């Protein structure tokens, strides 16, 4: 099989879903615009990419939505320093918090699912403290205009998102540290025995997921010029849906940034398309839930069938070999 067709086969389910979603959106709403509708949901793609990195490393970061809200709050609270500076500080705080989280998880050897339940509440509390319990606004509202320009046909927002996705893709597949994350997610004891540094891997993975959530949160806040203590809570569920619909496994060690991109595109087109038809937000939540359930069930049955086929083939081969042996025996 050529590498191109192998590539397509690998992402087949996601491609089919993307086409189904896209064509049904056009069928129901002829005025549907892909480009303009995806624009609003781009921060989600960045956050999904970060979450995907921890999942590839066999861990799970439940704190991404809190982290995004925190960075957004920091960005707005420090906007007096100029928006570029405050965005940078917001993102840096996310990366540092994420790295700290990864270090603590590795040091304690604790389940990240358990640990991040705690940090989910803790970082949300920090967001409340930064905001002072109220939603806060950027003083100079014209400062957000720098995000409204266009370079070629892409907005600064989509360029940032694409750069992050491509950068992470290269990092994961082409660098040693990136490939070590796959090893840690796929077969941890073997990886550690082979010399992969577990603690470094966790710091890197959670630094990336913290950083990506911070980029998403800061961009949302900088774009809207405001932040609220309870903001972005729904992002955890949506980002997780995007990652899982994209086909990244919770078991770890599998998945690429192409998965993230496809999953994000499917979710983004679906929710933007439904919003374009005038549906309320909860309708798109319903459809995302249904889609997620369909994808995991389909994935389960596909794997079930292929496993059964494989077993049957082995059994058949064994039976043939046995009968061949018998013939040889009789012949002698």
């Amino acid at each position: 099989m050529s590498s191109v067709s192998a590539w397509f086969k690998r992402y087949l389910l996601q491609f089919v879903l993307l086409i189904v979603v896209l064509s049904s959106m056009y069928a129901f709403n002829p005025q549907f615009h892909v480009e303009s509708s995806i624009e609003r949901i781009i921060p989600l793609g960045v956050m999904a990419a970060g979450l995907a990195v921890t999942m590839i490393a066999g861990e799970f970061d439940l704190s991404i939505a809190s982290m995004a809200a925190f960075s957004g709050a920091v960005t707005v609270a420090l906007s007096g320093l100029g928006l570029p500076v405050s965005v940078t500080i917001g993102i840096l705080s996310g990366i540092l918090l994420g790295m700290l989280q990864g270090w603590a998880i590795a040091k304690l050897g604790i389940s990240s699912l358990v640990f991040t339940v705690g940090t989910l509440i803790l970082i949300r509390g920090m967001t409340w403290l930064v905001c002072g319990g109220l939603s806060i606004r950027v003083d100079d509202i014209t400062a957000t205009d720098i995000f409204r320009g266009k370079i070629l046909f892409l907005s600064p927002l989509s360029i940032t998102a694409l750069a992050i996705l491509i950068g992470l893709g290269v990092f994961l597949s082409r660098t040693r540290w990136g490939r070590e994350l796959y090893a840690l997610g796929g077969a941890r004891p073997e990886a550690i025995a082979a010399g992969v540094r577990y603690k470094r891997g966790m710091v890197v993975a959670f630094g990336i997921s913290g950083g990506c959530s911070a980029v998403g949160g800061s961009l949302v806040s900088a774009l809207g010029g405001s932040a609220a203590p309870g903001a972005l809570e729904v992002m955890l569920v949506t980002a997780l849906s995007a990652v899982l619909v994209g086909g990244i496994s919770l078991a770890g060690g599998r998945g690429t940034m192409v998965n993230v991109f496809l999953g994000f595109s499917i979710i983004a087109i679906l929710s933007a398309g439904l919003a374009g038809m005038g549906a309320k937000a909860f309708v798109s939540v319903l459809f995302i839930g249904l889609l997620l359930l369909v994808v995991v069930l389909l994935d389960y049955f596909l794997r079930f069938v292929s496993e059964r086929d494989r077993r049957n083939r082995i059994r058949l081969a064994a039976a043939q070999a046995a009968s061949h042996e018998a013939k040889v025996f009789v012949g002698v």
Partner: protein
Amino acid sequence: MTTLDKAPLELRDRAAVRKASNTVRNWALPILIVLVFIIASVTVPQFFQFETIRAILLATSITGIIAVGMTAITLSGNLFSLGVTASAVFSGVVYIWVGQATGSMYVAALVAIIAAVVIGIAQGFIVGLGLNTVIVTLAAGSIIYGVTAILTKGEVVQAKGTSLEGFATFQIMGIPLPIYIFVLFTAVSWFLTEHTLIGRNIHLLGANENTARNSGISRMRTTIWAFVSFSLGIGIAAVLQASQMHQIQADNLPGLTMDVVAAVLVGGTAVAGGEGSPVKSAIGALFIATITQIMVLVGIPQGPRYFVLGVVVLALVIVLHLLRKAGTR
């Protein structure tokens, strides 16, 4: 010769450490609660009063009932559900609707609990196939939330004309009914998980799935039972919550899922499964409610309160983890 003399001593030391850390782990939270109660009674003026303690127990009961129910899922090695809020709100809506249609809060409660259990069994079936609980419950939660919001058109569902608040306002010796139900539910769950076949199967499936399945324990059946326990908790808590508020909306109870998960984890049930108890989760919920109530009494605003709660949950989870590590070494 010297190594022979040393080895048993070292082993004995290790056994002593293991035993001590297990004892500490089992008794840490109850002792901590007692300490917090004593300190708060001395330092916070309005704390040691019947009303305050009643308020703490009442606040515990809703989260606590669900946490106790969810313990079976965690015990069976299926992590936890991320769709608590949606199911609870749906059951609450069913309670109010059926209550209005039939005029009887008993029929309404029964239908609401059955609705919750049916939804729970459906999720348990999918998880029993071998799919991840976190994904399934997340997807199910989104679907249930969407359906609830569409059915109610996103508006507040109110009980008009019929009185459905009986479950929340009924009192025996000045103590409201939800507290009795909470205690009773915890006791029954404890008995079922510790002293019945299905409870032992849940423990075993969580402790070692391969061994459990090789010994003839059905993953499907056991997982479904765990989800039945969970959704019974959801249904009962939803009825109590809906009769307390007398109204419900699809967007209500946003923090419930995380409160419940935090209660289970703080209580000391291992997320890997096989170890823990519904009583521990009930104590975890009680602890969180106590800390929150004290902060309310002292006058700490919501933001810092959330922050302190996060610190406490994180610290307890880490301490429990370290103790567990020492206990199994």
